[in-house]
Structure formats: structure tokens, C-alpha cells
């Protein structure tokens, strides 16, 4: 009789065992579900600019970013012109504002020959995560107005330029990210009848973190030869190499480039550029500072 009771006890104890074995400590229990969750991938690039082009980095909601970029004269002019520093080819002043985590708007004005004023929007479509999304995807669209004075009267539409870009980026390792940027620029007015109104291009950008606060960036913008081959010059596609240095509140970028304009609608139009491998390169820098509004 006693033997049966003991048996029963053991049997029922065994029955309830599986229930007890689940009782790990609460943290272990949480970790089981938490470690499998997909997390967002942050800081693919240091800022909203790689060198000259935009990145998939999105401003925080309510963040106002002030950026000023300078592009100096040709370094090939030597010490006499302090390697181009005596001349300022282009100054681009920009304000960008993050409306929410997915959408930002901006204004930029370049001191180039056309005195281009650019308005733009940036939408994040996809953001890279640790397991669900392999890459980030954003759209950047811009409408530009050339605000310079013309010798003859021009219709307002003649001053317009339009831009569309898709930004596809991926952070491959903790230090290395890359971005592919196919885009299209439409210029309502071009210098001559052989110059195309419509320009297709793809930019490839890479970024490598040397230290937690310094990255080396490279960017090559390939303009597709969709126009007169006498005008097309592959050597004038823009190649830029830069270094990002971030300090507490800003990002400071120094770069060399064969572009002579700082806005993409300007440098995608190859005829504005110099040839990198002829040594016609320019030193430039950008400073970005953010304010919380």
C-alpha cells in the first residue's frame, strides 16, 4: 500500500517536472525572445552627405541641420594660388529639417554661375535591420531654380531643374558601408542644342570607419552616355574622396573632387567638371551642425 502511494507521488512529481523545468530566471526567459528580434541598423554613414551626394541617413524629428560647403580652385595652380585655396569656386549653404523619422525637407543655395536655389525632400522607404531588411532605401527629389540674372529675358520655366534619386545603402560590417544611387536630372535650359536636357547617372559611394569618429569616403558618379559622344567625356565623371571627422556637435568633411559645383544637378552635367586624372582637382570642405527645435 505504502509502496503504491510513494509510486504515485513520484509519478505525479514527474508529471509536473516539465512545468518546473521552464522556470529559468526571468532574464533568461526574456533573452530567449529578445535576441531573435530584428533591430534597426544605425549610423550607416556619419551624416546626411557622403561627399557631395546625399546618404540614407535621416534627420531626427525636429532636427534642423545647417550645412555649409566650400569648393576651392584647382589644386594644380600650385603654391602661387595656395593650391586653389585663394579662389572660392562654389559655396553651398543648406538647411535641412527632419519632420519625422521618415521624411525631411531642405533648401540649399549655391554660389555657382547659375546661383542655383534647390528645394528638396527626402523619404526613407526602407531602413536596414539586423534580420528583416538587408538594406536601406530612400528617395530624394529636388526642384531647383537658377536665380542668376540673364542678359535677355527668360521665361521662369527656363530656370528650372528637376532631380530624382534613389539611395540604396547597406552597412556591411561595423566599419564599412556602401551606397548605390541611381538618379535622373532634367535641365530645362542647357548651354547649346547639343547638350542634353535629360541626364541619367549612378553614383557608387563607400565609407570606411578608421576610428569611431573618422571615416574615409569615396564617391564616383557615372553619367550614362545617353548624349552626343563628342560631348561625352568619361574622364569628367565626378570622383571625390573625403574624410569625415566628427566632434561633439558637428561633422567636418574635407575632400578632393574634380567637380566644380556642389549640387548634384550641377556636377552630373559633366561639362561643368574637370578631369580628375589630369590633376584638375579641387579641395573642399563641409561643416554640418544640428539644432534641436
Amino acid at each position, binding site marked *: 500500500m505504502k509502496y503504491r*502511494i510513494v509510486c*504515485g*507521488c513520484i509519478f505525479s512529481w514527474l*508529471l509536473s517536472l516539465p512545468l518546473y523545468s521552464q522556470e529559468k530566471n526571468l*532574464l533568461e526567459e526574456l533573452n530567449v525572445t529578445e535576441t531573435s528580434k530584428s*533591430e534597426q541598423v544605425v549610423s550607416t554613414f556619419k551624416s546626411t552627405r557622403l561627399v557631395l551626394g546625399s546618404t540614407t541617413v535621416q534627420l*531626427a524629428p525636429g532636427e534642423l541641420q545647417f550645412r555649409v560647403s566650400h569648393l576651392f580652385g584647382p589644386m594644380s595652380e600650385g603654391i602661387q594660388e595656395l593650391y586653389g585655396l585663394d579662389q572660392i569656386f562654389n559655396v553651398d549653404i543648406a538647411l535641412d529639417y527632419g519632420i519625422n523619422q521618415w521624411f525631411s525637407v531642405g533648401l540649399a543655395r549655391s554660389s555657382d554661375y547659375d546661383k542655383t536655389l534647390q528645394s528638396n525632400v527626402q523619404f526613407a522607404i526602407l531602413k536596414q535591420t539586423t534580420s528583416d531588411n538587408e538594406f536601406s532605401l530612400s528617395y530624394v527629389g529636388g526642384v531647383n531654380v537658377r536665380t542668376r540674372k540673364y542678359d535677355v529675358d527668360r521665361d521662369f520655366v527656363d530656370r528650372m531643374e528637376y532631380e530624382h534619386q534613389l539611395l540604396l545603402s547597406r552597412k556591411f560590417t561595423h566599419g564599412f558601408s556602401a551606397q548605390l544611387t541611381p538618379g535622373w536630372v532634367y535641365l530645362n535650359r542647357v548651354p547649346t542644342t547639343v547638350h542634353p536636357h535629360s541626364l541619367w547617372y549612378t553614383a557608387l559611394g563607400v565609407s570606411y570607419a578608421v576610428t569611431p569618429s573618422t571615416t574615409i569616403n569615396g564617391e564616383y558618379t557615372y553619367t550614362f552616355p545617353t548624349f552626343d559622344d563628342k560631348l561625352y567625356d568619361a574622364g569628367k565623371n565626378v570622383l571625390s574622396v573625403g574624410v569625415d571627422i566628427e566632434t561633439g556637435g558637428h561633422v567636418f568633411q574635407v575632400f578632393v573632387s574634380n567637380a566644380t559645383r556642389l549640387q548634384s544637378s550641377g556636377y552630373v552635367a559633366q561639362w561643368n567638371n574637370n578631369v580628375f586624372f589630369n590633376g584638375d582637382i579641387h579641395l573642399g570642405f563641409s561643416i554640418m551642425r544640428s*539644432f534641436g527645435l
Partner: protein
Amino acid sequence: MKQLIAGVIGLFFISTAALSQSKYKADEGMVSFFSSAPLEDIYAENKTVVSLVDLSTREIAFVITIVDFQFEKSLMQTHFNDKYMESHKYPKATFLGNIISPNELKNPGNYKVKVKGDLTIHGVIQNIEVDGEIIIGEAEVEASSEFTVKLEDYKVKIPRLLVRNIAEEVLVKINLTYYPVQP
């Protein structure tokens, strides 16, 4: 035979009693921190904290995902993750501890509690004791606490250039709303 059945049923009841509803889970808890330094105030919040509390064993645990802290400026988030928290190496901050007072935590009501346990931030474990409040309601349990975290204790290094921008101690606030876990 009857005794056998009685024994089985009896023991079964005893063993299941321990599993009755005392465990609660929070899925979208909020944690924020505030750093006040001469040059700059920094505030960030994270609304994806998950936590479990067991009112009978008095055990409490939470997990915070570092990259989910939202800042006023995108660059701050980059700094926070890349330089200070090294979230690629230490993606989570965790806590596991026990409610050490009061002794009774069953009936609905407000309780001032003391919690003691291990807080892990940036891969460094520190035993801490904090005060908090637990409100036991009809269906849910709310918990909140405020405490300071000294960055040095967790080997979070601030460059000398930024000592005037980032405080040595930050104020952490945590708010969790728990719902019963169905066993």
C-alpha cells in the same frame, strides 16, 4: 488505489499552485535618460523595453535595446551607439533582481518598493539597489523608478574634449506597464 489517486491529485495541485497567475510582462516599456552638463542637456528615450515581473517569487527583469534610444539629433544617436555604448558589441542593457521590500505584494494598491539586483550596461555588471513604485491594479501592474547611473561604473568613457557636454552621472527614469502572462 484510492489513496494512490488522492496522492497524485493532491501533489499535482500543490505543484500547479506555484504556477498560478503571478507573472506579468511589459512589452512597450519606456526608459529615458537625462544628462545635464554645462554646455549641453541631452535627453533620449526608448519605448521598446521588455520586462517580466513575478509577484510571488518577487523576481524582476528587463531588457533594453540600445539602438532604440531616440535622441533630438541624429548625430547624438550615432555617437551614443558608436563611441560610448558600442552597441555593435553590447546591443542590450539588462537587469535581473529581486524586490526586497515590502514583504507583501499581492493586493491591489500602491507600494513603495526597493529592488536590488544586477544591472548590465556596456558589458559591465554592477549590483545596484534602487527605490521605485509598484501599482497593482485590477488587470495590470505598473512599475516606475528613477535612479542615477554613473558612466564610469560601466566603463563608458567620455573624451576630455566633451566633459563639458556630457555629465558624469545620468538620471534614468523607467516606466513599465505589465499585463498578466498566460501560462
